């Protein structure tokens, strides 16, 4: 059978769990996931019909929906959102897939280091990074423009960050990092014999990439694309900064506007938020249709080769190209962010005594720093740990079992993305107080962990699922036949193969916990404040430079955790080339 043949199958052949307690456990898992996911979604939908202002009696009606979709600027905001999302996802996908392939499948020099550089770009906070790019690319005072205009043949500014392409570029610096983060582990799980078979049939290296590798990687590519589209729809910070001055509004700006009016207008905001559900349904339906028609097994019982593709004479030119991309999207913003922490006024080089250590001194002597760092680590590790275990379990049930509700469980795991990020904290707040089930956790770090666990569920489950789809069932069956229990099979066969993915899932959960503001503001307390709130305290007081110190420290914290995770993962996971 040619490696490029796809096999049509109506049901995946999975590892059949025949024990009754296992079925009960799966049913319990299903119930818990349904409760955690459907309750906030239901409350969001319910409140889209609730017209009473905060503090007033509850009144139901359709006025919120009429107000939301009657706004003539909604269509242009939606168009801007779609065009920005499609443009940057298209560019990032093409470049990201090639980068992931080069890092995971070839003999590129220093590829592990390059991969980590891309990870770092993903860990950097978006607002200070955007301000850094403004400092470089502003058409009036941007440093890069000023340097270029010093050349005799350049009269006008070459770059303008306040533009459609400026927004695309600033987002690209994190989008590429996400693509590499998500796709490289999946690419590593490709058996090299599939590529060798293709080349021995006469296909070129690039031909093999497009006709063998990419089709087999489609589950991971689709998940990363859906993640990218949803995040693009939710994005508003950079659009506020760079789009508002040029009259470019996006969908989430409209939602945010309504939530931040005084008094807030939740009914139209939540009505607008339902657009996310529509988009998600369409994307998920497409993904399930595509994945359901084919098999994507690349790790089978026939042996697994990790030989990489030799780039030959292109090795070093490609290395320099990848390095240039990596350093552009990572080190430029890191330098800008780091510089900002030592400036008296960020971006002002001409004021007297522009440099200072005072920002660091002030932050390091902040009495709330240690508490915030401790809470961040506790919430981050708790969310990451719980996430890795439960998302792995959910993905396993969906892919590897014959549990009757697995299709619905899969769909439920997507649903947290149906609630835009800006409304998720609100949805969870309503869940806590209107159901009262979780009231005993209110104000504690555990509620924050739970909230962030729900938020990260689609990503964690789908990425783990895309890797599980690559693993053929005969590996577990062979272990079972040899007398291994389910736990032994999971620990000795699946876990090493899933470890790189779990590291990524854990890190993204950790980072989400470290950076989240909207959830912490609505559900946190004085005792559970995190580094994100500390950074907000400084930024809100006009002390952007000190906020940058906290953001820089948070990024370092995440990078250190990432390095530790990679070291531990390297011992647990399968050995790569």
């Amino acid at each position, binding site marked *: 059978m040619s490696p490029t043949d796809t096999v049509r199958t109506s049901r995946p052949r999975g590892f059949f769990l025949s024990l009754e307690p296992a079925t009960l456990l799966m049913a319990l898992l299903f119930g818990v996931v349904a409760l955690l996911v459907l309750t906030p979604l239901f409350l969001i939908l319910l409140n889209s019909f609730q017209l009473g*202002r*905060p*503090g*007033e009696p509850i009144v139901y009606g359709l006025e919120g929906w009429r107000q939301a979709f009657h706004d003539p*600027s909604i269509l242009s905001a939606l168009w801007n959102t779609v065009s920005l999302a499609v443009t940057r996802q298209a560019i990032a996908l093409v470049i990201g897939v090639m980068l992931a392939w080069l890092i995971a499948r070839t003999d590129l020099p220093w590829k592990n280091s390059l991969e980590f550089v891309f990870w770092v770009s993903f860990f950097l906070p978006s607002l200070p990074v955007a*301000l850094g790019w*403004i400092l470089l690319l*502003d058409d*009036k*005072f941007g440093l890069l423009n000023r340097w270029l205009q010093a050349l005799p043949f350049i009269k006008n500014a070459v770059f303008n960050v306040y533009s459609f392409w400026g927004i695309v570029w600033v987002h690209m610096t994190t989008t590429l990092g996400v693509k590499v983060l998500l796709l490289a582990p999946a690419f590593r799980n490709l058996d090299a014999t599939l590529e060798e078979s293709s080349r021995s049939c006469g296909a070129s290296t690039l031909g093999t990439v497009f006709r063998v590798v990419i089709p087999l990687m489609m589950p991971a590519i689709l998940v990363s694309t859906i993640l990218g589209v949803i995040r693009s729809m939710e994005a508003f910070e950079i659009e*506020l*900064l760079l789009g*508002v*001055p040029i*009259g470019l509004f996006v969908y989430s700006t409209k939602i945010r*506007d309504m*939530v*931040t*009016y*005084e*008094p*807030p207008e*939740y009914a139209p905001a939540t009505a607008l938020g339902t657009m996310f559900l529509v988009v998600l349904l369409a994307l998920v339906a497409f993904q399930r249709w595509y994945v359901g028609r084919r098999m994507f097994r690349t790790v089978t019982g026939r042996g697994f080769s990790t030989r990489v593709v030799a780039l030959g004479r292109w090795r070093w030119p490609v290395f320099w190209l990848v390095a240039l991309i990596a350093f552009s999207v990572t080190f430029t913003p890191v330098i800008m962010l780091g510089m900002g922490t030592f400036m*008296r*006024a*960020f*971006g*002002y080089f001409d*004021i*007297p005594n522009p440099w200072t250590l005072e920002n660091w001194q002030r932050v390091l002597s*902040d*009495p*709330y720093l240690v508490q915030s760092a401790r809470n961040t680590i506790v919430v981050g590790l708790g969310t990451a740990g719980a996430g890795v275990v439960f998302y792995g379990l959910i993905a396993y049930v969906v892919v590897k079992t014959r549990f009757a509700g697995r299709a619905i469980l899969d769909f439920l795991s997507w649903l947290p993305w149906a609630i835009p990020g800006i409304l998720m904290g*609100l949805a969870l*707040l*309503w869940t*806590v*107080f*209107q159901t*009262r089930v979780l*009231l005993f956790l*209110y104000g504690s770090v555990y509620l924050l962990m739970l909230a962030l666990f729900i938020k990260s569920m689609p990503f964690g489950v789908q990425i783990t699922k895309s890797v599980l789809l690559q693993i053929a069932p005969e590996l577990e069956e062979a272990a079972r036949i040899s007398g291994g229990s389910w736990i032994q099979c999971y620990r000795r066969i699946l876990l090493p193969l899933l470890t790189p993915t779990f590291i990524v899932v854990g890190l993204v959960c950790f980072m989400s916990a470290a950076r989240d503001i909207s959830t912490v*503001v*609505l*559900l*946190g*307390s*004085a*005792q559970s*404040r995190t580094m994100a*709130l500390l950074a*907000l*305290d*400084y*930024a*809100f*007081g*006009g*002390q*952007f430079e000190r906020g940058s110190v906290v953001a820089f420290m948070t990024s370092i914290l995440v990078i250190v955790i990432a390095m530790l995770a990679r070291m531990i993962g390297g011992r647990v996971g399968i050995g790569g080339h």
Partner: protein
Amino acid sequence: MLKRWLLWMVPLLVLFGPSLGEAAWKEEWQKVLKAAKKEGVVAVSGPAGVQSRDSLTKPFEDKYGIRVNFFGASGRELSPRIMAERRAGHYTWDVYVHGTTTGLTVMIPAGAFKPLQPALILPEVTGAKNWRGGGLELLGKGGLLAVMTPFQRGTIFVNTNLVDPKEFKSYKDLLAPKWKGKMAVDDPTKPGPGQATFTFFYLHPELGADFIRALAKQDLIMLRDYTTQADELGHGRYPVLIGTADFVVERRIRQQVPIAVVNPRQLKEGSDVSPANGAAALYQNAPHPNAAKVYINWLLSKDGQSYFAKNMGYISARRDVSTDHTFPWRVPQPGAIKTYDEHAMMMKKKVRVLVREVFRR
């Protein structure tokens, strides 16, 4: 008989009345303080920002030994939380320190506050002579929301390398053709200093809706982030900025960035008065009622107001609190238009409709 009784009662009252009153408030204060220390903690919701956090926690803790559980966020971020809690019968907050907008439009209609007057014990707080305007200003029926720091706002900000701040004598100078396309503004369609400025324009008898319509024809560039607004001005991208957060600009001025606030006293129409985040109230059903009383008395005392006003860059309504930390023109002028009271809240609804129409948002 009555006359004889009065003859010796009146001098007795004059002689001993004050000390009787003093004994009464001191006794009450000691009783409340003792109960407050037993409660051990006070939960305060206040504005986000290191300055507010520092001024609303440690000084009180150092003085009374009562821990402050402080949570900072904007009023509009805290209001859904507080409303959800109260609806579920879950009461976690004692003292409110935020702006008047959230207080008047969300909290008071929801019955979240209780009358302040019965909680005010210290004579330096209750004494009318200690406050500008002859007494602490209380908003809301029953006196629910105290206005601690009404100050004259800055409304026009300029880059001093490009514009002489003394050039402006009236807001109508902004309508000159030379400023077309060169002025940035804090987006007035959303709550914030931009909207407060446009509310002032709307309320001023010599400006009004016509002025707003004329100003909209100057191709104003809308910005939303306060730091970006100050920096675009400081870097000279826009020579003039209308309505932004004073404290952000003042910080940049202290950092010697070439920015200036146009003195409203040189403008024919002046500027509006607002307390920004300097309003305070007591929550109904507070979990620590005695600690809340001690806290509110401290916050409104000279001690509390000195810390708060100085750290936030505001002007306290107390006469005995220094104003040296900010511009002298920030002291409110008599008769200045208020953009923080109930009337202004009602007008803001009309202003929002108008600015959305003229700026097409």
